[in-house]
């Protein structure tokens, strides 16, 4: 490996100064992908297309043309992001052969900025899961310890970046699906404010909670990626028109004078000793670096997981109803009539976890239960949102662990849904409150597994998160 140890920001400098070509990078990525294919991080790769595109960008750069902020950099998309002409499977048997007839806004923004899309990353089926074991194409392995899960649902996206198969990837996060795998694999992942990145072309899981975000090896890389993909979109009414700042502009300003909030609800007894220690050290470091640590209260944090499973499952049940075997995807053979066609196609096409959520979602929306579940969950969501905005009035961001433990073993929780769901206990409230949060490495546990810390920001204040995260990362570079 010659170039893949460089960060995205560094490699762009090398590309711009002519020390490396995009084609060389693509070739190295594919060598590395081959070398590490046991990780099962990717569902499809596009070597020929990527080489062709890299060649075009190299030529354009040689002619002195503007090749964009990511000109020539190999990146990977999660396999629920449409990119014209590529398979978009959502790691589901149902969409095994589905070829995108159009391109998602976030992917076209990457493309327009010169990125070379080289592959689609494995994931939990339809983004439902916390371990990437729910993929129809097999589990992804954690590159730090291949006996362990990479986290999910963007497990492939985290793995491919951590394993140095590419320089950056996109994931999606509905309840922690970017941050939890980032934490487990030791990379940086942000779940931007709901509405910061267009969802157009990203296969929906829970439309009111889904957000696209980058996974990278450094905070600055992440800010650069968000610079490219954030912004309003005429194709997505929920994409915000709030102006997108340059996330790199203030990233080196340090934390002096900033207030960082600590809520006791994030530091419950569920926390493993190593995680607690790492977080306490991080908080201590911030204090020494000039930040003021304030105590805040999030009394309803415990309810977030229940709220999440009601709302996300309800939306998922409706969103996934279009997978009916009529228009695209898998159609069962030997059906008696149209109802039988639906029944068999969906029975054969969906995995267990997806079916579980569909049933849960239809249940909470059904007549007679709607008020008790869906409507109540939406009401509690408001309470949680208010608590977050109150807490964030007292500080510039909150700090918490991303997960209570480090990466667990493959198969360890697959029989126990509740234990699996509890993995997301610190990340889910962020989606419910629709605020942004970043996960970045903050040390390792006794087994050398990465620990992640989560910084939670105000609506559309990703810039502060990057600034606070970058300060920590810069000071702890040698620890890596």
């Amino acid at each position, binding site marked *: 490996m010659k170039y893949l140890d460089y960060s995205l920001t560094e490699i762009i400098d090398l590309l711009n100064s002519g020390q490396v070509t995009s084609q060389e990078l693509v070739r190295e990525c594919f060598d590395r992908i081959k070398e590490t294919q046991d990780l099962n991080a990717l569902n499809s790769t596009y070597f020929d297309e990527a080489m062709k595109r890299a060649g075009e960008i190299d030529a354009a750069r040689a002619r002195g043309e503007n090749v964009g902020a990511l000109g020539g950099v190999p990146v990977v998309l999660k396999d*629920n*992001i*449409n990119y014209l002409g590529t398979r*978009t499977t*959502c790691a589901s048997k149902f*969409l095994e052969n*589905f070829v*995108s*007839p*159009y391109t*998602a806004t976030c992917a076209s923004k990457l493309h327009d900025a010169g990125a070379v899309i080289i592959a689609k990353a494995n994931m939990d089926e339809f983004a439902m899961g916390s371990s990437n074991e729910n993929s129809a194409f097999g589990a992804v392995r954690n590159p730090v310890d291949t006996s362990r899960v990479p986290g999910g649902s963007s497990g492939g996206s985290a793995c491919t970046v951590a394993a140095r198969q590419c320089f950056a990837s996109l994931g999606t996060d509905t309840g922690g699906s970017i941050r939890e795998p980032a934490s487990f694999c030791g990379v940086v992942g942000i779940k931007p404010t709901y509405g910061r990145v267009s*969802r*157009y*072309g*990203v*296969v*929906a899981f*829970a*439309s*009111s909670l889904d957000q696209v975000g980058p996974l990278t090896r450094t905070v600055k890389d992440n800010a650069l990626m968000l610079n490219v993909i954030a912004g309003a979109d*005429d*194709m*997505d*009414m*929920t994409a915000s028109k709030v102006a997108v700042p340059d996330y790199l502009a203030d990233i080196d300003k340090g934390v002096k004078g900033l207030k960082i909030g600590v809520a006791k609800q994030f530091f419950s007894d569920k926390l493993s000793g190593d995680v607690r220690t790492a977080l306490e050290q991080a908080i201590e470091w911030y204090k020494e670096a000039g930040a003021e640590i304030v105590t805040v209260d999030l009394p309803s944090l415990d309810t977030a997981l229940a709220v999440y499973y009601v709302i996300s499952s*309800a*939306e998922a*049940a*409706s969103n996934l*109803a*279009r*997978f*009916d075997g*009529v*228009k*695209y995807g898998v159609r069962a053979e030997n059906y008696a009539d*149209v*109802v039988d066609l*639906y029944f068999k196609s969906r029975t054969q096409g969906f995995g267990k976890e997806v079916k579980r959520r569909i049933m849960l979602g*239809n249940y909470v*929306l*059904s*007549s007679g239960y*709607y008020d008790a579940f*869906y409507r109540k969950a939406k009401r509690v969501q408001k309470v949680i949102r208010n608590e977050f905005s109150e807490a964030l009035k007292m500080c510039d961001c909150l700090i918490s662990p991303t997960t209570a433990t480090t990466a667990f073993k493959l198969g360890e929780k697959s029989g126990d849904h509740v234990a699996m769901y509890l993995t997301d206990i610190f990340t889910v409230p962020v989606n419910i409150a629709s605020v942004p949060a970043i996960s970045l490495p903050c040390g390792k546990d006794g087994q050398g597994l990465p620990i992640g810390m989560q910084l939670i920001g105000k609506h559309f204040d990703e810039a502060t998160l990057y600034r606070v995260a970058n300060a920590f990362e810069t000071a702890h570079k040698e620890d890596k």
Partner: protein
Amino acid sequence: MSWNTVIGLEVHSELNTRTKCFCGCKNEFGNKPNTNCCPVCTAMPGALPVLNRDAVERAILMGLAVGCRINNYSVFERKNYFYPDLCKAYQISQLEYPLCVGGGLEIELEDGTKKFIRLNRIHLEEDAGKLIHSARGTMIDYNRGGVPLIEIVSEPDMSSAEEAVAYLEKLRSTLLYVGVSDCKMQEGSIRFDVNISVNRDGEPLGTRTELKNLNSFRAVLRAIKYESNRQIEELEAGHPIIQETRRWDDEKGKTYSMRTKEDSQDYRYFPDPDLIPLEVTNEYIESIRAKLPKLAPQRVTEYIAMGLTEQDALLITQERAYADFFENVLSYFNEPKFVCNWITAEVFKKLNALEVDDRKITVQPKDLAEMLRLYKDGEINQAGARKIFDVLWDGGTEPSKLVESLGLKQMNDTGALTEVLQKIVADNPKAVAELKAGNEKTMAFFVGQAMRATQGKANPKLVGEIVKELIK
């Protein structure tokens, strides 16, 4: 004790926007299947709806025309059910917070009394695609999928099939006045569902059934009559009415059970998270109100001021196309009563021979104006005018030239007419005697004879004068 029928109507009307409700595809009828489609309206994974403001504006326009209150805040919800023509497996509709509420329409009954039919709501939603059944199997055309619809829901204020049809006619007329829908029943751009129940005087409302597949006013009329009789017969035989959806079979003239309440769908409505709540300001609503075209009642008042009778004014304003045509003719020939008489007699005769959807005035206003001027000026007589009108209706033009080419110029030459009539008077002593005896009706005989003798060109007024003179 006598029976009451209670009827409420749900009318779906496609809005004539340029593009679909939630994507940029063309909203057009009759194109090759699946050509007006995109990832959004074919429910490709990841596609998202974006609300067409024009559809909102048209829905509000209709709401204002029928006196609805426009809600500043309304919400699109998903109505979830599986059907092959519904590609997302949910329809974007409105339930808890519709765009327009209240309002109503005044209908006129046969006996001239008026009745106000209240509206419950008008909400905005999207249409589904269309299944095409063929020898090769069932195929789906998604061209119609995502076309904007308004659903106009009445209160159960109608008590007979005739009232229901009068309401539908008024509603259709209003939609056409406002110009938000083309209301073509054959193309399905306006569709009706009927809710109907019966009860005895003084007793609470009965169990209702819903009638589907009503594609014409005639079908509505017959279906309601059939269904209310059916319900009365069931109840009189001691059988309860089952709450159910029934399908009207137009050929057999009967309704058939489709599904009962027990196996009816649970639509699991919830707010569509892809669409932010629709907020419209009062300023916006007022800016739409300013675009409301002149509606029938206002035109009736204006026409009466021009000298039309109320009855004529009501007749000519029953459809916007007729009233517009009337005003256009007047812009060339400002004789309101004269023009109106021709339209309500001759034009309506032509139109009534056509199916409702096909009723289109095919004469150019300018041509009709010119013809009527010739008629009024005595250049042609009524028979000649009718002949020219027939030609104009079938695509002819330039009435003055038609007068020449068809040889219809009225004979106004007193000398020549006297010559003709002298012979007729001489040949018909019996008729002369009757006329002399004061039987004015006999004059028609002389006019008829004169017409025959002049190939219909004689000026009938002049004929009368000359005959009177001759028999003196």
